[in-house]
């Protein structure tokens, strides 16, 4: 569904992505794993239109997303849950969610209202705190809010950048339960994670990124059977 073909993204003269190709299939959780500095966030930013690729192409179903503006890409159906959540701290929970639907056309208003109700049903803590300002929420609640906000854009694919970052382990488990549930309901997810253990539990397909290039491309089972990767990312003898 989402095809990234041989993109090269630069920060000034430094090549962060050196010809990266991946594919996220519809209805699946596709996971990008890799060490710090591998280019995982750069990949998501390039797809989301925050960064422009120097060469290569990005297509979503039949639409060409390459070098489209960030608002344009949101309109085509790609929503990003950013690293560190990045919610609007002084706006209320409800306003945060409404902001997520900003790229949708005005005539969609009834659908947007229906989606807002749906988010509240899916995440009851958000409904309880709908008038509280975003900055007063706990880390796990902010992550829920960030996910809900991205879902308000009714995306075809949801991109998540390190949702486990900075959260307590029990909250991380809750967030991954949410990711798993979302996917079961049909949401396609492109997940970037450093927490390989949790990611392997939900992913259908794994890409390993190292130094701006894909070095492994396969199912979670294949990854667990590869000894080199096991030692490097999962710790020797882990399941």
């Amino acid at each position, binding site marked *: 569904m989402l095809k990234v073909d041989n993109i090269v993204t630069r920060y000034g003269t430094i090549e962060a992505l050196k010809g990266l190709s991946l594919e996220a299939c519809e209805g699946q959780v596709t996971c990008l794993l890799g060490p710090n500095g591998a280019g995982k966030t750069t990949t998501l930013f390039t797809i989301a239109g925050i960064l422009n690729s120097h060469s290569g192409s990005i297509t979503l179903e039949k639409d060409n997303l390459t070098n489209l503006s960030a*608002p344009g890409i949101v309109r085509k159906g790609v929503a990003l849950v950013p690293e560190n959540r990045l919610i*609007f*701290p002084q706006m209320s929970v409800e306003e945060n969610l409404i902001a997520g639907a900003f790229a949708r056309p005005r005539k969609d208003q009834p659908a947007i209202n229906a989606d807002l109700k749906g988010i509240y049903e899916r995440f009851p803590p958000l409904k309880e705190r709908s008038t509280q300002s975003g900055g007063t929420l706990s880390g796990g609640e902010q992550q829920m809010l960030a996910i809900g906000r991205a879902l308000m854009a009714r995306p075809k694919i949801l991109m998540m950048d390190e949702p486990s970052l900075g959260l307590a382990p029990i909250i991380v488990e809750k967030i991954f339960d949410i990711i798993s549930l979302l996917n079961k309901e049909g949401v396609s997810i492109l997940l970037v994670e450093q927490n390989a253990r949790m990611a392997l539990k939900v992913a259908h397909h794994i890409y390993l990124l190292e130094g701006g290039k894909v070095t492994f491309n396969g199912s979670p089972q294949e990854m667990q059977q590869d000894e080199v990767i096991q030692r490097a990312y999962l710790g020797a003898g882990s399941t």
Partner: protein
Amino acid sequence: MTDFLQNCIDGVMFGSGYALLALGFTLVFGVMKRLNLSFGPSIMLGAYAGTWVYLNFSQNVLLVVLVTVMITVAVGIYVERLCFWAVRRDATIASMVSSFVIWMQLEEVAMHLLPERTYPFPAFFTSTVIDIGPFFVRSEHISMFLLTLVLLALLHLFLFRTRPGLAVRAVSDNPLASRYMGINSSNVLFLAFAVVSVLGGLAGFLILSADSQVTPFFGLWATFKGLIAMMLGGMGSLPGAILGGLLLGVVEANAFWYGGPVVRDISAYLLLFMMLIVRPGGLVGQRIVAQQQAAYERV
């Protein structure tokens, strides 16, 4: 005591004009986290254009208001495109310096347009004095106050009840997150400048028609009053801008009554100085600044 209260009434009325100027600075500061130093002179150019129309074209006061606001908006857009849109996102100081430079340019243009030191500025109705109990108010002051209330209500409606207003608040709150949501911060900045220029043009008209004249010092004057009022209230806070303007008005009115024009002028600076020492976050700023810090550290 009556005198003091009278001064407070006068101060609140005139302070509403200061509040509008402070709001102009605060709104733009909120969206782009930089000061637009050309705000005062852009209003002055608008007022000069209005005066020119009044002297050479038509005595219709409504037309003067329209021209003042439209020219202020046009100059505001000129400043926005040149000093803020065209300058790189991370060059904060450069953009503020260029707005300072354009301030100089705008003043030159104004002085060539109308070279005399003072020009008459029209008002909607002739100044009358209204008695309310032991106090009296001037008609132009009360109309300025009432119109400011209307403008504040409209601004609140815009920011909190419309989609573009939500975008303005989102970019002010977290510009990076707004970008990820697909909010175009360049468009939002343009809109903020346009709204602020309308506020400024109207504020300028109200202040100058209360004074019945416009001078080439108005640009500097408006900049100082607006910035001082904003800082008194707390930078980046909209309610703070309003309170700061009213406080400045009240202090100046009393300073003028008990001390004269020189004391009035000095009192503004003294007040700011004391505020910066005693409560640097401003009237509302301190609590909000602390809250903002806490909120940002979690996000």
